[in-house]
């Protein structure tokens, strides 16, 4: 349990570092790890200055209705966003619709949400999918909810920055149209990643381990930011900041 909590905290710290150069980050109410990361970055560096938790009442500052997010994105007012998917392929196409032949998908997933739009317009889209398996990371998605790449005549200001899973972090190379393995989390190995990734990707045999979280950043998360995380993501906070550690901190 503690190990899982530590792994999740490491992901939070890793993502926080990726958001340091952003002014405005929007995250879904159902995305606790990216959400916690954005809150942590804001607490640590004051950037992103704006963290908007979509679907939340207290932590969403939009006053223009559900469409404001998309207008913001289209104007370049959102710097980073997170997308996931039941399937992600080697060209960074994502599938949020379902497995099998559309429309009779089996299983059907919720649907595309705003991905078909936001993927084109937000500069730094981080693909985040904890499950790292051949089921989720596939050669070719069954349905393209949003394409990773577009031809030159297509208006496109944004796209995939990288892919973060429970095993590794990949950067997307737009010129090569491929992912490149950036770092391997300490719980995994290159062999493990090759075994569990359904698409081919570039890598060096000396690919580094993902750096452990900076102790000061981790401390900030465990102390100051945990309250904020608990306010926005109560169930998640309960899982990663167990009561025992809370009692220990209280002392």
């Amino acid at each position, binding site marked *: 349990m503690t190990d899982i909590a530590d792994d999740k905290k490491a992901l939070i710290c890793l993502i926080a570092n990726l958001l340091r150069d952003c002014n405005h980050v929007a995250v879904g109410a159902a995305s606790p790890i990216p959400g916690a990361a954005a809150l942590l970055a804001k607490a640590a560096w004051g950037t992103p200055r704006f963290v908007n938790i979509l679907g939340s009442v207290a932590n969403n500052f939009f006053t223009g*209705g559900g469409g404001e997010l998309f207008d913001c994105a289209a104007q370049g007012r959102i710097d980073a966003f997170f997308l996931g998917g039941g399937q992600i392929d080697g060209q960074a196409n994502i599938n949020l619709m379902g497995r099998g032949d559309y429309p009779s998908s089996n299983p059907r997933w919720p649907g595309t949400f705003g991905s078909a739009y936001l993927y084109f317009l937000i500069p730094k889209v981080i693909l985040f999918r904890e499950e790292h398996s051949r089921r989720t990371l596939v050669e070719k998605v069954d349905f393209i*909810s949003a394409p990773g790449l577009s031809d030159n005549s297509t208006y496109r200001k944004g796209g995939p920055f990288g892919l973060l899973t429970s095993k590794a972090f990949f950067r997307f190379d737009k010129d090569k149209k491929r992912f490149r393995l950036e770092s391997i989390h300490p719980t995994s190995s290159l062999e493990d990643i090759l075994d569990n990734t359904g698409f081919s990707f570039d890598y060096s045999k000396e690919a580094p381990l993902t750096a452990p979280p900076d102790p000061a950043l981790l401390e900030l998360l465990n102390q100051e930011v945990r309250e904020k995380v608990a306010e926005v993501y109560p169930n998640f906070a309960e899982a990663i900041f167990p009561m025992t550690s809370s009692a220990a901190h209280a002392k």
Partner: protein
Amino acid sequence: MPIGFEDGSIDEFAMAIPDGAKVAIPADYAGVSMAATRALIRRRVKNLHLVGVPTSGLQAELLIGAGCVKTFESSALTLGEYGPAPRFTKAVREGTIQLVDATCPAIHAGLQASQKGIPFMPLRGILGSDVLKNHPGWKVIQNPFANNKDPIVAIPAIQPDIALFHAPLADREGNVWIGRKRELVNMSHAAKTAFVTVDAISETSLFETEEKAAGVLPALYVGKICVAPNGSWPLPFWNGAEVDDAHMRRYMEMAKSDTGFQNYLDQFVMQESVPA
């Protein structure tokens, strides 16, 4: 006074939504009228065309499960952390509903076009997706102002017959307070009329102060109001209740099977044994 709502029951309210109606419904965070949803199922409404603005959840799930829906047009149907929506998943697998899968800003844009009385709204993004390939209404056009090739997607206007939602307050003139949930205004402007359930009636005009007036949907757009306290139950409400977590878990358990879902309808919809 344009609207008589004082003595109308929720079942009479639902009777005014005809079979085959195109009904716009908000996402869970904007105020869903679950009270009206249950009344619609009780009246055995048929062939609804639901427009989830821009997504839907338990509301569409129940209506689909109860056989009330012909077409589901939205960007997603999600029950969030409770997991895959069992009745929706089954309906898709068996092909018993017609799907018009969109993406969130396209739903907003279609409604905006209707608000403005124009045929379509152009929208960036979407190109190269299978959502575009499968959508029956969208067209790719050339940006008429560009010298170079610049394809852009034209989203046709979406005009619902009725916008249906739950709000905190209405006054005696039929004005409705929606706070900053502007999508409810967009939905209502786009639709032919709005049907609204409210927690309570304000005895003073909602236009009395500018602070309140800033969040008012004027009675001009409102066709029917029904008082239904806690009308979003078991869903959360931005101006009140948290989600009824125990009930949602119970739903997920019961809706796994056809019989279980029927039992759910019998117990919580047909008899409306709603805990306070």
